[in-house]
């Protein structure tokens, strides 16, 4: 399952699994955000290409309006996925500590 909420610091906190079945809900959430948005990925266990598509669509919309999506707390596995997808070139990515 996937959960998305706002954290106390204003970041969007995402947790669970962002697979193809969860993408409509994730996209609906992202469509409501504006500006520069920090996405706290510490609880994100899994992402597939469908989930990457949601992040890309959001990043394109935000950057076109002068904002961006920053990914923080990114696990080693997710770092690999972002690297192999070329997302390290289009997202600011901060690894998990």
């Amino acid at each position: 399952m996937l959960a998305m909420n706002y954290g106390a610091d204003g970041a969007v906190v995402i947790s669970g699994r962002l697979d193809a079945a969860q993408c409509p809900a994730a996209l609906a959430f992202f469509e409501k955000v504006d500006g520069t948005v920090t996405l706290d990925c510490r609880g994100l266990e899994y992402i597939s290409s469908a989930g990457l598509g949601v992040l890309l669509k959001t990043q394109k919309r935000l950057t076109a309006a002068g904002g961006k999506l920053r990914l923080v707390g990114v696990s080693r596995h997710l770092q690999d996925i972002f690297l192999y997808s070329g997302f390290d070139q289009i997202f600011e990515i901060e690894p998990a500590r």
Partner: protein
Amino acid sequence: MKSARSFRRSFDSLEDIFALTADFFAAHGLDRELLPTVDLALEELFTNMVKYSPAGAPLIRIEMTAAQDGVEVTLTDYDVDHFDVTQAPEADINLPIEERKPGKLGLHLVRRLVDSLQYEYSSDRRESRTTFRKTRAGRTASGSMVKLGE
């Protein structure tokens, strides 16, 4: 050492597929670090079948076999056209964001993350079999993929 189930040709089957892989890993004591990659490869191959073969048989069969230090997974799709996943065009991951479009990353990721990927097709039975293997000893993105061929 082997487990097989058939799943409805629907994105809604993903939750049950992930339950199958988690149970299989637990039952065979497999390294759970491999699980996200196995799930990703399964999701990409399965959802490709859902998206591009909507007129195929209602069920897609998934068979998992415990291999040395890992797992081998075969997806069998029935009453479908030929589509060799090992020959799908590469995604260009170096495009600037303005030119990037969602999609095309699924098979690109699978080919980089698994140890081997094999596609077989029977035109008589209109049946495809896609098999991948993931092991602890397998390569990462910087390695070279063993392609087993058709």
